[in-house]
């Protein structure tokens, strides 16, 4: 099989695998921003507040900023590797070229499960929001949320099936509206425009650190939720017009956007909602920004934040379908999974079989598991992936030292970001252990079992040398 430059602007994606049609290169930096921020922004609208429940409001703020450092390291590392390994599958494809097939298989599964669980969590939230709208508009019964959960997942899967440009342009519009809603809420309630309703000092009185410093560590678990999924920008690598420019720009701009949105969200919600209510995402505040708008007394803000919450959940679910299907597709294309999944739609140029296959999987989780469990499953998959990243960049720099291959972006201060990332991941593992140790062990047990299945069974169907598709020289040390 011939070596073809996958970063070429003259060919579509999938060229190196010998297929007749590939994914379309139609996306720009704004789409990358919309994919990354679109997936994550829902984390400000729901889910992050479990961190408040774990350790109090101050603990959630510390978790927000420490997680911000973690994701800055992730974005720096990812931008360098992805702008060089510009292919669908993102970190899966990176691992395949840098670490080895079994790690790549695991990373591919982390990606699929992190995004599919996040998609399920979004659908659950969308169903909840529609039930709130129903009660606000006079419906007195208990609304069955399940049809709406199914509808959300089916509609977005259909959109993804039809084409990536429309999918991510839709994401760009609704993500921008959802982000603007946070800014407008901040301007309207913080005292900048009109009277403020923030009461941080009185609300924190007597509850500054309700669990002490161990609560701060525990809060790190859900601190990831502020940013979880920003690394998904890499999944579009094979569909952007200029990977070397669009990916670093879109990803780093996305992290900055999220750091601002996360801090504003914490400030708004903790200044209005008592911490016990804010921190209980099941029996208390399911959608904290929406609850904050509710207490502002403004009907306009209430509706704006209601739409903001709905748009954020839709944007996230939409981006998750996009990313999970690309990871699944990339693994199918390499035969890490049945090759049937590695097909591209002849007309819409999307990985349509992977998109369709993951719909019932998302529905199983959305309809069958509680929200915090689904979020935890997603976070754990993300955490395992972030722990892989420092190992990945250290091996990347060692096997292809600077100057031996062309990098689209070179991140500064190596290996400091890798070491910081590893240290924060260790802290988050401890935080997960404090509350969800059983799930952590169950999940790692799952990955060990599927790894053995891959190594001793599945890998026989994978061609050895041809899976290495990058036009690089032989790695140092081999």
């Amino acid at each position: 099989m011939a070596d073809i430059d996958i970063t070429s602007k003259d060919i579509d994606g999938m060229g190196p695998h010998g297929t007749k049609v590939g994914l379309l290169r139609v996306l720009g930096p704004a789409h990358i921003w919309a994919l990354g921020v679109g997936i994550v922004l829902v984390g400000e609208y729901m889910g992050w507040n479990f961190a408040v429940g774990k350790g109090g409001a101050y603990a959630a703020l510390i978790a927000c900023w420490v997680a911000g450092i973690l994701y800055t390291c992730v974005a720096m590392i990812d931008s360098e590797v992805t702008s060089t390994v510009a292919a669908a599958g993102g970190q899966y494809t990176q691992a395949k070229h840098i670490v080895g097939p079994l790690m790549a298989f695991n990373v591919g599964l982390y990606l699929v499960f992190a995004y599919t669980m996040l998609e399920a969590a979004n659908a659950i939230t969308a169903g909840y929001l529609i039930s709130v709208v129903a009660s606000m508009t006079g419906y007195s019964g208990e609304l069955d949320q399940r049809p709406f959960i199914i509808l959300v997942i089916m509609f977005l899967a259909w959109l993804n099936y039809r084409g990536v440009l429309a999918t991510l342009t839709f994401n760009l519009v609704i993500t921008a509206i959802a982000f603007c809603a946070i800014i407008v809420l901040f301007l309207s309630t913080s005292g900048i425009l009109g009277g403020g309703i923030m009461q941080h000092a009185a609300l924190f009185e007597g509850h500054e650190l309700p669990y002490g410093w161990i609560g701060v560590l525990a809060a790190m678990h859900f601190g990831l939720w502020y940013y979880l999924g920003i690394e998904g920008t890499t999944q579009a690598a094979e569909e952007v017009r200029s990977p070397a420019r669009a990916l670093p720009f879109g990803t780093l701009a996305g992290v900055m956007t999220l750091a601002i949105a996360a801090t504003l969200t914490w400030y708004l919600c903790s200044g209005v909602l008592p911490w016990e209510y804010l921190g209980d995402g099941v029996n208390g505040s399911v959608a904290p920004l929406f609850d904050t708008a509710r207490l502002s007394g403004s009907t306009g803000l209430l509706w704006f934040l209601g739409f903001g919450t709905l748009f954020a959940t839709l944007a996230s679910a939409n981006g998750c379908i996009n990313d999970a299907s690309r990871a699944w597709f990339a693994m199918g294309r390499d035969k890490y999974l049945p090759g049937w999944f590695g097909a591209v739609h002849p007309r819409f140029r999307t990985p349509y079989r992977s998109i369709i296959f993951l719909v019932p999987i998302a529905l199983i989780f959305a309809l069958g598991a509680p929200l915090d469990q689904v979020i935890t499953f997603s976070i754990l998959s993300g955490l395992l992936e972030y722990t892989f990243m420092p190992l990945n960049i250290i091996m990347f720099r060692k096997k292809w030292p600077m100057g031996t291959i062309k990098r689209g972006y070179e991140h500064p201060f190596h290996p400091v970001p890798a070491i910081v990332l590893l240290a924060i991941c260790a802290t988050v593992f401890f935080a997960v252990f404090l509350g969800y140790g059983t799930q952590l062990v169950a999940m790692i047990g799952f990955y060990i079992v599927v790894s053995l299945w891959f190594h001793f069974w599945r890998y026989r169907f994978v061609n050895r040398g041809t899976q290495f598709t990058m036009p690089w020289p032989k790695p140092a040390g081999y």
Partner: protein
Amino acid sequence: MAHYEAPKQSKASQLIDVLVLVALTVGALFVPLILNMAGAAKTVASPEENPTWESLGQNAVQAAQYEKLGFTPETAHDLILARFDYSFTFGALLVMIAVIVLYYWLMLRFSEVEYREVIAEKFGK
């Protein structure tokens, strides 16, 4: 290294592979749930017999916000007093660390063996 020619997989075998993977995934999420081992439930250590905002540790501003949200001291009782238990044993912590380290060690070791095959076939010895 000799060129490795992967066998062609039948449709039935592909289907079985997918079913195995899905079953394992669903199991990893639902088995802890079914066995009631999932998550850390909050508990109320010292319930209040006749709760008031003061006895629940709420100042006037905090109480006012709860009332705006539609709560009374009775309905907010569990929400306010429930706490997580963060106690743990060092033995359990060591087991978790060992599981994580073992997992990554296995991944890197098996991957390295496979990676050497890939590089040998791609670039030659």
